[in-house]
């Protein structure tokens, strides 16, 4: 957890094309330590692509990216220890139990005292009762909590979450929100994408709107929900 002054994310003009089609057309984004940045945008805006690039799962076609002050293009695999990623899918093996999945990733990351850490996270995710059931039978809410636990195993400084609230019922949403708030208090930096404006008000310290592959609007400091909603309508509404 050294170098607290280096921003977890500093992206400069990120472009990513797929088969010639630009999904990201020049994204500039910075995430400072301890921030919770909400990335808003309609479907197709490029949120998932951007998050995957930040998770070092995808390389940008052009542009510069520095994570914790390190150039992402030439970084050693060790940089991944500081990043945790929760995608659309759980990244967990459906036929293994929750505990086995976490155990696998703990070993992969070389975490000391793996079994204690796994037990800790199972409790944190509220999955004690299901720890020995295969992931295949989990509800969506349980899967999301497990995915978050998986991302937290190696205590990353930066958490990247791709639409974590989608498909959750109100109880599950509240549970997830609470955990994210706890993480924010503990000093983790979070970047999450969503198209749910209500969530933004409760958790985010900063908001950015992604539209057509670019950051169309960004708000420094917490913004009241109505301001965000108005901005969203303006940005998205202007280009039907």
């Amino acid at each position, binding site marked *: 957890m050294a170098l607290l002054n280096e921003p977890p994310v500093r992206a400069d003009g990120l472009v990513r*094309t*797929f*088969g*010639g*089609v630009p999904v990201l057309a020049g994204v500039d984004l910075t995430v400072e330590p301890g921030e919770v940045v909400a990335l808003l945008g309609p479907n197709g805006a490029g949120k998932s692509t951007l998050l995957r690039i930040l998770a070092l799962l995808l390389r940008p076609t052009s542009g510069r990216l520095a994570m914790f002050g390190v150039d992402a293009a030439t970084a050693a695999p060790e940089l991944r220890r500081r990043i945790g990623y929760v995608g659309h899918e759980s990244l967990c093996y459906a036929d293994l139990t929750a505990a086995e999945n976490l155990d696998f990733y703990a070993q992969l990351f070389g975490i000391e005292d793996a079994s204690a850490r796994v037990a800790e996270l199972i409790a944190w995710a509220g999955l004690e009762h299901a720890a020995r059931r295969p992931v295949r039978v989990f509800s969506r809410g349980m899967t999301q909590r497990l995915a978050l636990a998986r991302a937290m195993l190696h205590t990353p400084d930066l958490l990247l979450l791709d639409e974590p609230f989608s498909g959750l019922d109100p109880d599950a949403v509240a549970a997830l929100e609470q955990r994210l708030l706890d993480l924010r208090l503990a000093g983790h930096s979070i970047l999450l994408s969503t198209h749910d404006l209500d969530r933004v008000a409760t958790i985010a310290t900063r908001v950015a709107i992604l539209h057509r592959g670019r950051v169309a609007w960004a708000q420094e400091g917490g913004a009241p929900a109505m301001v965000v909603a108005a901005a969203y309508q303006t940005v998205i509404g202007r*280009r*039907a």
Partner: protein
Amino acid sequence: MRRLLPASVFVTMMAALYVVFMVVPTEREMGIVQRIFYFHVASAWVAFLGFFLVAGASAVHLWNGSRPADRLAQASAEIGVLFCTLVLVTGPLWARPIWGVWWTWDPRLTMTVILWAIYASYLMLRAFGGEDDAIRRYAAVLGIVGVLDIPIIQVSVHLLRGIHPSVITRNEGGSGLVDPWMRIGLLISSVALIVLAGWLLALRMRTARLGEEVAALRRSALERKGEAA
């Protein structure tokens, strides 16, 4: 440059045709049909060269993501499979009148078939793999692995007992080329076919580049139309 290549093709092909059909003496045992040999072997050399070209271009593309290298790999594969097909067609045409069989699992022919199959699978991957940029990388990996396989294939086909004895190899590889003009004939036809292949390669690469430009133009036109709406 654009005029030079077709002119060279014309000149070398004319020379090759003249030498092979007019100058080289008729082979004692096999007669006139033997003249196919010159183009058969020359095609095989071109097919092999194409393979190495695919591998080289693929390696460059993997190294620095170069698009021209990728276009070269694709074009070389297409030209390679063309000449490989020529080998597989001229082979039976030659074999049938002379040895009475359309096909034999002679080591060299076997190798050519496998080579053809690898070429074909490369083109299948590019054609049906999808539109992703990733396909270029996968094709490059296949190109490199294919060329690594060649020496192993070469050795392994000699393990085959064969349905027929090696009738064709007995007559290739020098023992039949008694007259110096025969060697010259082989040389000239090889040069002619290499130049032809080079021309086809240049044309194909230009087409590929133009195709990409058109696609890009089409895309930006579509985007502008969307913004104006």
